[in-house]
């Protein structure tokens, strides 16, 4: 009997739903001081002076420190950035974004921290502020005079586009579109606690998506060997890419703990999080698409400007993924692209669910819709005429991506049929005829995405103990994805020991020194497969040992209920018995050697009140094909979460700065995360096209929902208004934006 593919409820939940999970700020740390950071309220200024005297004598204050007191060298947070664009751990001469840490206050009690922080007086001499990407590109106001430019880095950013690129196209459409800045906003904000031992080693508890990367980064920033750092990952309340590795504040927490000789703990408020945690997306696109009136697209050009924020981080790398995935699912003869990353006086940009790929998808899907509108063809039909054919796989695309497998037309057909597309078009026509106030819009997206990009190797260990329990060690780092259950299922598949007896451990660098964490939808196809592989190897090892014990041939041995059994006899020895004789553990590494490319299609059905601009998502019908599904319960949850975030980007969320660099959406009251009332239930169709890249044939599913849903919903709203002459509306499609688009088209 196989457990693979069954809906197994999570083993984690018994604890999560009774005493609750244990997040970093839940941990007791005896004698710990609380760290409160004083942060800049201005976007760009010289620090004239910092007066900490009054703060130092406030109740409960143990220390107040500024950059002058802290011996940490400013660090380059993205190795590809301009070398001058280093981020200080506490600002010393200049602040470059609202929220940049300027002083550190250590108090005995948490509540005392804010009181003392309010007493720190910082004198700022304002500098000109640059907030827009295009303004930054003029280099008139420089964030880093030593760099001489606001361009951090780019990918082909200095090349000239081919002026004859669109020759031979009947129709050419160009549009500038915005992929707006978002906040990852996991419900758990960032937190870290540090304690130095008598042996001089640092123990760091932190909310991260990868303890090993966090260890290496913090060790580097502190200037010590990685072996001196022990990172422990408690339960993590969501990450979505924004908790990859470590944040500079973690090094500050550690340094301060060593400096004062006491443990230090830090847990930011939501307001701090909204300016202190990396933001996502923030790209400006100029897209140009050319083709013929029969629907064939011949050429596509994508020009990307990436807002990197004040200090370049992972956002400096992501446009490379955008360019890699630019042609998406389409067979386009000619594709050219380039990307430039610019610094602005805003929060740094990093990864957020999809991380570079949603941007590529929105761009090409908008381009296809604009092209369809120009030639008067149904957008689903235009897509169909340009999809890469299944026989062509595996292939390398015009963007340079090595696609493994895909059934794009099958996905498109599935959602069109399940949604009743033809009937919906008829309903749309009827409402237009009647001039209804509530119009119907249909949006179609067909998408592909890259998972486990650049991070396709992972470690695992499986050990059976003499008491019959099992420990699995993994280099992945779950923060809601359910690896404790899923990896237990994979071990169970070989060991036939109930999953309740299988404990999966992660995130402790002394226990698991190597691991690449959880991001980029990589975990199952690398870490999960490694667990499966290790368990299989353990069974082989056990059989060899059992063959001696049972005096049988290895070929006659099978595993049944945690025991090695001679087929068809009573002769057996349990794995636990074998473990009692000699430790029974296998360490394994799996590397697929390449990323995989899950794909799918979404149809979004929206209703738009043309008087008020209000949009309601009526239904969304989805295919998210990530190969065979290990646990449908978990996979569906990932799809649901991704779809919700995708809809939210299309309709609700945007991080907004005014022209002085003041954030206008820095609370949950202002930033538009949807509640259950804003969303429908989702329709999930099944499709499972395996990959050849690993023995389980699995790809990644964590981000696909986000990638497919955003363009489908944006497209649907514009579609609802196309008869009024509306061709494009930038996201988020708030009621105000929709109404202004309708008015503008009159």
């Amino acid at each position, binding site marked *: 009997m196989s457990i693979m593919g069954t809906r197994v409820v999570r083993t984690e939940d018994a604890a999560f739903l009774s005493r609750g999970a244990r997040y970093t700020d839940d941990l007791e740390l005896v004698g710990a001081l609380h760290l409160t950071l004083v942060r800049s309220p201005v976007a760009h200024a010289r620090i004239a002076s910092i007066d900490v005297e009054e703060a130092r004598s406030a109740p409960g204050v143990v220390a107040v420190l500024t950059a002058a007191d802290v011996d940490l060298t400013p660090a380059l947070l993205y190795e590809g950035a301009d070398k001058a664009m280093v981020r200080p751990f506490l600002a010393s001469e200049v602040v470059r974004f609202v929220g940049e840490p300027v002083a550190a206050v250590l108090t005995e009690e948490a*509540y005392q921290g804010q009181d003392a922080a309010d007493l720190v007086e910082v004198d700022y001499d304002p500098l000109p502020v640059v907030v827009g990407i295009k303004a930054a590109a003029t280099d008139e106001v420089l964030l880093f005079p030593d760099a001489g430019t606001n361009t951090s880095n780019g990918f082909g950013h200095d090349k000239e586009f081919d002026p004859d690129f669109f020759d031979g196209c009947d129709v050419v459409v160009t549009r500038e579109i915005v992929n707006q800045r978002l906040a990852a906003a996991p419900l758990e904000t960032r937190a870290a606690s540090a304690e130095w031992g008598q042996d001089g080693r640092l123990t760091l508890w932190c909310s991260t998506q990868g303890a090993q990367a966090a260890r290496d980064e913090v060790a580097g920033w502190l200037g010590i060997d990685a072996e001196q750092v022990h990172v422990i990952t408690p339960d993590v309340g969501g990450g979505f890419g924004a908790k990859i590795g470590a944040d500079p504040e973690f090094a500050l927490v550690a340094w301060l703990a060593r400096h004062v000789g006491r443990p230090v703990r830090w847990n930011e408020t939501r307001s701090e999080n909204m300016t202190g945690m990396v933001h996502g997306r923030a790209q400006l696109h100029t897209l140009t698409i050319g083709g013929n009136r029969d629907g064939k697209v011949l050429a596509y050009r994508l020009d990307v400007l990436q807002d990197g924020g004040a200090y370049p981080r992972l956002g400096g790398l992501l446009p490379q993924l955008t360019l890699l995935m630019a042609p998406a699912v389409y067979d386009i003869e000619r594709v050219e692209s380039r990307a430039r990353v610019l610094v602005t006086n805003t929060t740094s940009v990093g990864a957020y669910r999809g991380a570079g790929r949603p941007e590529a998808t929105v761009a090409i899907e908008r381009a296809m819709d604009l092209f369809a509108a120009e030639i008067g063809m149904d957008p689903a039909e235009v897509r169909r005429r340009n999809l890469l054919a299944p026989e062509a796989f595996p292939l390398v695309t015009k963007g340079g991506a090595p696609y493994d497998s895909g059934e794009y037309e099958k996905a498109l057909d599935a959602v069109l049929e399940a949604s009743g597309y033809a009937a919906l078009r008829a309903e749309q026509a009827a409402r237009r005829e009647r001039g209804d106030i509530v119009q119907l819009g249909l949006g179609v997206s067909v998408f592909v995405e890259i998972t486990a990009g650049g991070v396709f190797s992972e470690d695992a260990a499986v*050990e059976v103990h003499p008491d019959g329990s099992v420990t699995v060690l993994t280099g992945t780092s779950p923060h*809601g994805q359910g690896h404790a259950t899923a990896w237990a299922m994979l071990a169970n598949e070989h060991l036939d020991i109930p999953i309740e007896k299988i404990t999966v451990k992660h995130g402790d660098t002394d226990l698991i020194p190597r691991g690449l964490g959880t991001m980029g939808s990589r975990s199952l196809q690398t870490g999960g497969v490694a667990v499966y592989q290790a368990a299989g190897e353990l069974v082989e090892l056990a059989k060899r040992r059992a063959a001696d014990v049972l005096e049988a041939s290895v070929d006659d041995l099978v595993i049944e209920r945690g025991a090695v059994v001679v087929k068809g006899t009573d002769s057996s020895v349990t794995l636990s018995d074998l473990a009692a004789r000699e430790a029974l553990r296998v360490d*394994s590494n799996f590397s697929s050697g390449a990323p995989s490319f899950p794909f799918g299609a979404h149809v979004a059905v929206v209703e738009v009140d043309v008087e008020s601009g209000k949009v309601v998502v009526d239904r969304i019908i989805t295919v998210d094909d990530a190969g065979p599904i290990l646990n449908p319960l978990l996979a569906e949850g990932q799809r649901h979460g991704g779809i919700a975030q995708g809809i939210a980007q299309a309709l609700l969320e945007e991080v907004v700065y005014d022209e002085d660099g003041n954030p206008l959406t820095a609370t949950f009251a202002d930033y538009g995360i949807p509640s259950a009332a804003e969303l429908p239930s989702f329709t999930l*169709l099944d499709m499972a096209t395996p990959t050849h890249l690993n023995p389980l*044939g699995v790809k990644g599913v964590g981000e696909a929902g986000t990638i497919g849903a955003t363009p489908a919903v944006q497209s649907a709203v514009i579609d609802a208004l196309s008869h009024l002459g509306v061709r494009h509306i930038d996201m988020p499609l708030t009621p105000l934006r929709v109404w202004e688009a309708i008015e503008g088209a009159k």
Partner: protein
Amino acid sequence: MKVEITVNGADTSADVEPRLLLAHYLRDVVGLKATNIGCDTTSCGACTVLLDGESVKSCTLLAAQVDGQSVTTMEGLSSEGDDLHPVPAAFRTEHGLQCGFCTPGMVMAAVGLLAENPKPTEREIREGLEGNLCRCTGYHNIVRAVIAASGQDPDTVQGAAIHQGHAEVAPAGGVQAAPGFSVSSAAHASAATSTEGNAA
């Protein structure tokens, strides 16, 4: 000032600052860490508890305000190791949680909702949970969990044609043949290394 609050049926008391938020009283004075704080603006509901049976946001209450009253947190519904209370049990069955951070507040809001509306529709559930934000689940399974906890059938109440193409229930003990999985060494295209060894 002294406050006395019944928490999960047990008497608690402490000398506290007037400004101590109820959420911090529960977490730091009583030591019940399940209730979480997720925002600054009374928006996210992760801190939701029951006050004399009604759902409230404990980040927007002073411990002083509820002196003499009775508070229930998620820990008060089920003891670790025992069977779960029906509402959190439904969250587990329907996979209505992922990272778990919003969950204690979401569960208590659901308990409060069902106390006032024992057989809610999907719309009533979605609107009844408008004060609780979740970033992980997209709410789809949370809605199913609340429907199930109310004794109604999620597949009926949630609406037509939500699920297509997969089995609804896992057969106990697994399936005969793992759907979609075909494992062969020929399909395995990559290098692998392994070590047999002793436990660390």
